[in-house]
């Protein structure tokens, strides 16, 4: 490990973890480093526009180059690029917001978000990280993981996010079996009170799960009488179409016949 690269990464993470800007002294204290060291690192990062200094206060914040890097990460995410059209179509059909996510440790990282097409004020959720067991996207993906990976996630911490979050290992395991049988995962206010989700897994050419696509929205609309057959079919269809584009062959696609 290169020590200075590690230190620079810690500076970026410290600046990224707060909305407040941080001065050299604060950063040095927080990271347990000498002020001169931190200053040198900041100057180098600044030269690459990875951090920038506020002229009035002299404090540092993250720089514009990080936005480009973040976008590059998303653009290089083949899943996101290929999901654009399918996500847009699904949102239009269901009249609800669409989320596309990948599994990142025990969390679902949202890589794409299409707003509910009703012109209401909405906030982009790309980059949000949601515990897998509390959302439809996560359950849809984990249902198709191999037994070892699944067991590891089921054994991991399963935080309770609302009164309805499923935190029992056995209950979750049973639910994953239902997801496979049904072809979609459903979430009823398990991550946020009042919000629901319906999602289906995405597969690549080896039949491995690479992500999930689904609807997210107010529970009273999405699950009025459970998910409507049309909505469920629309989610499955988007997932199947997107999986085929990602190279999943029809025979290798689990649940394709469902």
């Amino acid at each position: 490990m290169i020590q200075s690269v590690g230190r620079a990464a810690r500076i970026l993470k410290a600046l990224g973890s707060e909305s407040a800007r941080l001065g050299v002294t604060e950063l040095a204290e927080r990271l347990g480093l000498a002020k001169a060291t931190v200053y040198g690192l900041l100057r180098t990062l600044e030269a690459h526009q990875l951090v920038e200094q506020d002229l009035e206060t002299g404090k540092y914040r993250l720089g514009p180059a990080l936005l480009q890097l973040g976008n590059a990460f998303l653009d290089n995410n083949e899943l996101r690029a290929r999901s654009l059209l399918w996500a847009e179509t699904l949102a239009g059909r269901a009249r609800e917001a669409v989320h596309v996510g990948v599994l990142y440790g025990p969390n679902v990282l949202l890589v794409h978000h299409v707003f509910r097409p009703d012109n209401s004020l909405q906030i982009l959720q790309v980059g949000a990280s949601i515990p897998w067991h509390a959302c439809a996207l996560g359950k849809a993906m984990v249902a198709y993981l191999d037994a070892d990976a699944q067991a590891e996630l089921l054994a991991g911490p399963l935080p309770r996010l609302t009164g309805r979050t499923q935190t029992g290992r056995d209950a979750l395991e049973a639910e994953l079996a239902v997801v496979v049988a049904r072809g979609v995962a459903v979430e009823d206010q398990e991550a946020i009170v009042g919000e629901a989700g319906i999602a289906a897994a995405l597969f690549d050419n080896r039949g491995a799960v690479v992500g999930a696509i689904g609807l997210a929205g107010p529970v009273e609309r999405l699950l009025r009488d459970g998910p409507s057959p049309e909505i469920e079919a629309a989610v499955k269809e988007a997932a199947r179409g997107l999986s085929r584009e990602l190279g999943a062959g029809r025979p290798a696609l689990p649940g394709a016949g469902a």
Partner: protein
Amino acid sequence: MAAAVAVPLAGCLPGPRRKAARIVDAACVRSWLGVVATRLEAERDFLTQLDAAIGDADHGVNMHRGFTAVMARVGAMEEATPGQLLKTAGRTFVSTVGGAAGPLYGTAFLQAGEALGDAASFGPRLLLDALRASLEGVQRVGAAAVGDKTMVDALSPALGAFELELRMGGSLETATSGAREAAAEGMRATVPLQARKGRASYLGPRSVGHQDPGATSTALMFAALEQAVVADRSQRFAAGARRRGSGT
């Protein structure tokens, strides 16, 4: 909009003057709901702005819409006990407000209404029970504890302050005043917290540095409660003075 929130503060029944603990009746509950509605209208954009930073930018609009509906529904009820008013408010909230606010505040009002039972009026003891029932309901639905950066961060300390004030021999007025202060303090204390519940928790450490919108609307309700109780007291006083003055 203005018509829906223009609740007359007058109409509180003159209560017995010598009672140590002051009481809350249906008229006072109506005036509390009215003050909340007025304040929510004034703070709608501020709440939405707070929510835009760490949520989905709908808290102000949702709360305002909900309370407008509550005022319309409650205003149409002629004879109602405080419990019935609060239960109606709760049901209206659940059915008209989306997002987390609908089920959470809806449950809070419903539980408070249940706790008050059929009482035509109530003192601070029963109000404490009602607040406790609200907190329990909110925690059952939202699973949030103090420190999670939610409305519980305002509600729980408000309840604690209310109870403490009563134990130290305080009145309804000083207890609601203590609750208002504690709720506001709890609200401000959400700023440095990292959210562990709700959409804000998706942001991880980026939720630090922002005031929680739910704790803010809860603090607003306690401020409104104090205002309604104080207005009620001065109304009663004025009514008493008028009676004496006119010799009736």
